[in-house]
């Protein structure tokens, strides 16, 4: 099922939690709503679930208007941030809850609960109490409970934020695997750009109740069209430049060179990703201000004239290491830069 969100607005007194949001998710696709806390992403998710009522706008599921449907009647199940598992029920009872509510026959409930627990790899844990589960198991139970009712849309509200790093990495692969297998249209709220990139087909970057950019993951990562998105996607070299319009060919200055550009703007941002810069025998000269060893890469902080540039170098055995204070030469492919 595809889902369309049209002109959704939500106000709390004078504060706009959401301002005129338009989004659509195709059948079987997974969309990540990415943004820092307070940007409205969870509010939007809850509006889609019907748990919060929007002030304006409408929501369509396969062209059916579900705007005025109560939460109970929408088939949009959610995996809650703190799981919201019913503490007085076992794993099996939690998963069966949605089916019981739908008055499905006991035998079928049993089968479907078993199948779903198998899908999330929790088979055999039906009779466990919630308190006895590990964080990862709770996460899987919450996922199973949402999946078992075969919803039209699956909603994830920062589902991995309570897990430790290692578990988070393996769970996000699990979620992706299960989502692809069941092919349920999904919306995934997160503040972690890596998680969004790893899980989603499409990302909507949100800031202050508005969508800054929507696109598939490579668009949002390689071709951000605004500063907030570029910065949020973790790009450290975003250089603000005034466009030189004195000649017929417009130019900006970057690292001691002039670059021709074609733009109407007076001010542009230049995105130069640290992994696209190389340290070479001849090139633009800079001075190493700092270096950070972050596992598989070494990140150099290099000063060139008035600007600071970060350069990532694979931390390979045979690579030469440069020290703070040393002078190095940099080069980059002009095609790798993105100007917006």
């Amino acid at each position: 099922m595809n889902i369309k969100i049209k002109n959704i607005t939500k106000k709390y007194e004078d504060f706009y939690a959401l301002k005129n949001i338009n989004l659509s998710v195709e059948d079987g696709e997974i969309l990540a709503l990415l943004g820092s806390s307070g940007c409205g992403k969870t509010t939007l998710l809850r509006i889609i679930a019907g748990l919060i009522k929007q002030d304006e706008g409408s929501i369509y599921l396969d062209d059916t208007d579900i705007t005025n449907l109560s939460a109970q009647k929408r088939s949009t199940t959610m995996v809650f941030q703190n799981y919201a598992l019913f503490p007085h029920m076992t794993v099996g009872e939690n998963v069966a809850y949605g089916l019981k509510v739908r008055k499905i026959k006991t035998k079928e409930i049993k089968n479907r609960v078993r199948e779903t627990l198998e899908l999330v790899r929790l088979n055999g844990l039906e009779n466990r109490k919630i308190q006895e589960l590990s964080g990862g198991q709770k996460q899987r139970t919450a996922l199973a409970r949402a999946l078992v009712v075969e919803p039209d849309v699956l909603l994830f509200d920062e589902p991995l934020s309570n897990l430790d790093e290692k578990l988070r990495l393996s769970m996000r692969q699990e979620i992706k695997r299960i989502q692809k297998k069941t092919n349920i249209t999904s919306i995934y709220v997160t503040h972690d750009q890596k998680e969004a990139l790893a899980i989603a087909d499409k990302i909507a970057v949100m800031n202050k109740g508005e969508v800054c950019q929507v696109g598939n993951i490579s668009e949002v990562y390689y071709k951000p069209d605004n500063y907030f998105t570029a910065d949020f996607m973790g790009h450290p070299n975003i250089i603000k430049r005034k466009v030189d319009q004195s000649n017929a060919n417009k130019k900006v200055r970057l690292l001691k060179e002039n670059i021709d550009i074609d733009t109407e703007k007076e001010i542009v941002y230049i995105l130069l990703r640290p992994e696209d810069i190389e340290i070479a025998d001849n090139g633009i000269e800079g001075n190493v201000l700092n270096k950070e060893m972050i596992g598989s890469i070494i990140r150099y902080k290099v000063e060139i004239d008035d600007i600071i540039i970060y350069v990532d170098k694979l931390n390979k055995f045979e690579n030469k290491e440069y020290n703070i204070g040393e002078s190095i030469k940099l080069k980059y492919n002009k095609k790798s830069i993105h100007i917006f």
Partner: protein
Amino acid sequence: MKDEKNSLLVKIIYSIIFVLLIYFIIVPVFSVVLYGVKTETGFGVSLNTIARSFSLLKNSLYISITVTLISTVVGLILSITLNRVRFLGRSTFKVLALLPFVNPPFVGSISFIMLFGRRGLITNKFLSLDVSPYGAHGIIIIQILGLSSLAYILISSSIKKFDTTLEDSARNLGANEGKIFRSITLPLMTPEISNTALLVFLASMADFTTPLIIGGSFQTLASDLYIQITGVYDMKSASVSGIVLLIPCLIVFIIHKYYRGKKIYFSDENLSRNIEYTTISSKTSYLLITISGIFLFIVFIKYFFIIIGAFTEQWGYNYNLTFKHFESLFTRQYKPFINSIKLAVVSALAGSFLGILSAYLLKTKKLFMSKFADFAATLPAAVPGILFGIGYLVTFKYPILGIGRWVFIEKRPLLLLGTGIIIYIITTARFINTGLRSGYALLEHINPDLEKASHNLGSSEIYTFRKITWPLMKDAFFASYLRNFSSGMITLGAIIFLLLPSNKVAVQQIFQIITSSSVGEAASMALFLSIITLILLGIFYLLIYFGKNDKASNIKEIFGSIFSN
């Protein structure tokens, strides 16, 4: 992690507290039991006494179980309506729901007598009946009116911690509101509701005043204790009744203390969550508001007639407006009020301090027999006040805190009984429990490493307590103090046999006046007592929290959790 090694100071303080707990709590309770079963030749109780006590027990249980069931349901409805449904006039409802809490339980009898008594407005004036309203039903009604307020406070404190995402989650899975309430909300609240029921039960069992005033020939174990001692001077029968009363109370208490806690589902993360229903149907909300409204209207009537009664010459005979009751109150009867305030302030301070200190020691240090100390400190919550008072009576009529009877056989004894100080001791002993609960509740939120950090930086134990622990525990102290102060103003059972004419308290005065049927005077005093209690609570509240808004909400949380613990 608890500290393994304790300094000498900690050991000394703990030893003192431990001895105090044994002397002033364990020994008196044990004494009543011993007194009841001991005879000249050995141990035993006559069959007659037992049979008598058991028929009274039947009465007590009949009243208490009925009251518990109804009050708990009313309390539940009130707390859902007043916390989770948004409607106009909700704050007025809240005030009315809380009011009975600052009154002694029997105050409702004043308006009950005014309306349904022999010369009552409804029975006599309107219906011209000559019926006696005295009996079990009156007791039940009066207790429900008072104790539903307790149930409301207790359940409210847990409802505020309810994790509403669980309801959202059920809603999200397609459950309708009724199903959500039955399968999620109610089951999750069950532990707190049953705790509330147990506390209401204990309070109802311990109430001896209401049966005495409007029970007529229908008496309960607690009221019989009073009659046996003041009327018949039969300490022996009183002690037997006491034992029979103590048994169900102790059972309930032990269930409450050791069974609970295993099934608590509330998490601290949800304290600030909005718990109002967003999707409640208007039919349901009208129903809830109507039920709460009817109940609170009756509460309102209760206070309305107390006010009317306070300004009426002589109810049932002469309905002229008068200030004479207040005149006599301010000219001749004001001393008991001063005594009440003195008692409430001193014992609330002492009880809260000892309680918090005990909580701190028991939770953070590894100590000798700490489980027992915890049991001893909480025991007064289970023992009906009047029984506890009899314990003091039979213990401290002997010299040196009761132990002297074996030491100073020939010498002129140093008696605690008959001194003014004993009522302060017994009230303090009963209030330690509140401080302890409040301290425990707060300590759960304090990082135990804070103290270690302070030690690590080189500060001494006393300095750490003064500069780190105490400032953090202050809130628990104040919460406990406010709670104890309001109980102190209406405490009667524990002290009624220990009071001297010179330190008579207001509640006792009101109680005696009601039993002698002087409605107007009783009403004026009850009204005055409520007002000064509220004013003083307000003053304390302002003194403590003036200009500290964030603190106030913190306190309210702890205040709530004292009740539920």
